[in-house]
């Protein structure tokens, strides 16, 4: 016997929530209900059995459907769960925003049972074909690579990037890069022609390129570029040779101190950037502090709290960063 498919509904109007629940239960779905986006998010965070689909209204108090969808897609634990948005008739803007937020599909209000069931089954079917576990497995493999890998479209806009590439380019390691509207490849200016010419004669183009970082600066990398079909679109896979992980020769010369503050859960208003050596040293230092805290070796300096190792580690690292900044004058 197969388990019931579970659906989480986030809808703040009770009448519509009741109707949707009844429709889905009639078709043997197990339904959980949330009265707004914040409640839905809490349910997702605390459940051991994630739903197969989330259906959410857009306009809701506390956390609207768009932000709920974004939060679901940002969390590695939940990002494979497809989200169907309930949008208003004729509101093209909402449709676009819903899809940009990562929604798998949308249903136009007023919702009908037939339409909703069609969309839910369609999303479940495509998910079964796509296989989220497989997607996750490939994503995990890509993210485990020390070298950066990005995929660009023919204009040079980034459509995919692994963790190392994100780090290299100054983006958070999770979440969407949202670079589709802006070419990321800065040099060679005629890279598409150069690459295509090379690919006509050999399996890959290899050379020096400059990629646009989050802060707009160029990051020079040695890259090997191949052509592939991604989502049925001709795309370029950029293997950033030796780039990405700290310690490699091709990482940017300067990195944001903010990233280090983020690592220790602090936010800095100081835009000062660190040299590669300083960055390496602090990464090692952070790891050492974390390991010492995990082993309980730091705790003896601070007796009041169970989280003292972490607190003390943050303090040490902040002092270290500030020391570097001060000495630089």
């Amino acid at each position: 016997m197969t388990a019931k498919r579970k659906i989480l509904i986030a809808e703040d109007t009770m009448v519509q929530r009741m109707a949707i629940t009844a429709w889905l239960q009639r078709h043997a779905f197990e339904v959980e209900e949330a009265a707004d986006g914040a409640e839905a998010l809490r349910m997702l965070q605390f459940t051991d059995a994630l739903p197969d689909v989330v259906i959410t209204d857009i306009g809701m108090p506390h956390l609207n459907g768009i932000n709920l969808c974004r939060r679901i897609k940002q969390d590695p634990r939940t990002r494979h769960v497809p989200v169907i948005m309930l949008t208003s008739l004729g509101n093209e803007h909402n449709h676009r925003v819903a899809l940009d937020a990562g929604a798998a599909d949308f249903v136009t209000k007023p919702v009908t049972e037939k339409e909703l069931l069609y969309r839910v089954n369609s999303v479940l079917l495509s998910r079964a074909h796509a296989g989220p576990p497989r997607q996750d497995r490939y994503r995990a493999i890509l993210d485990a690579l020390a070298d950066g890998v990005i995929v660009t479209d023919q204009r040079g806009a980034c459509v995919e990037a692994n963790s190392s590439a994100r780090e290299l380019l100054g983006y958070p390691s999770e979440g969407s890069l949202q670079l589709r509207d802006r070419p990321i490849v800065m040099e060679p200016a005629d890279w598409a022609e150069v690459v295509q010419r090379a690919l006509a004669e050999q399996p890959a183009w290899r050379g020096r390129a400059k990629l646009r970082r989050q802060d707009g600066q160029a990051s020079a990398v040695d890259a090997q570029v191949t052509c592939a079909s991604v989502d049925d679109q001709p795309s370029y896979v950029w293997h950033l040779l030796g780039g990405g992980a700290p310690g490699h020769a091709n990482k940017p010369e300067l990195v944001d101190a903010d990233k280090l503050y983020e690592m220790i859960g602090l936010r800095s208003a100081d835009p000062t950037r660190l040299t590669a050596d300083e960055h390496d040293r602090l990464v090692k230092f952070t790891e050492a502090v974390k390991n010492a805290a995990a082993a309980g070796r730091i705790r003896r300096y601070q007796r009041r709290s169970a989280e003292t190792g972490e607190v003390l580690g943050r303090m040490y690292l902040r002092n270290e960063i500030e020391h570097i900044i001060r000495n630089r004058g």
Partner: protein
Amino acid sequence: MAESDLDGAVIQKLVRLSEEGGGTLIPAMVAAFLEQELPAAVDQIRAAVASGDQRAVAEAAHKLHGSAATLGAASLALVCDQLQGRSPAPSKKSPRDLLGDLEAEAARAATALANVARDAGLQQFVHPPARECEGGPMHCGVVEPAS
């Protein structure tokens, strides 16, 4: 007369769905609508019209439209469309006049839905219509048309 304000096809589907689930769905939906969503939405729209806040009018009307359409209250849903400025046949009426239409349609829909719920055989979920209700004209979401 009251039932004619409702979309028969929608009601028929809801009745079937309710019966399949043990008969409680329609009374529960109608109760939620008449006791909570409808009076709250009408209050919000009334306040927004009084303060001239068209955006708040549209937001409240949008919410009400969804529930009204789900329950087959087509005329009420149409006025909600007009209040949002999204009707296929835009109204030239002022927001205040549309508020009067909304209150009239809300009263008619409330009576009709109360009858539907009553026909479903579970009157305990629904208060009697406004004239019989001790809670006043807004208690059941049944409101008198603006004079």
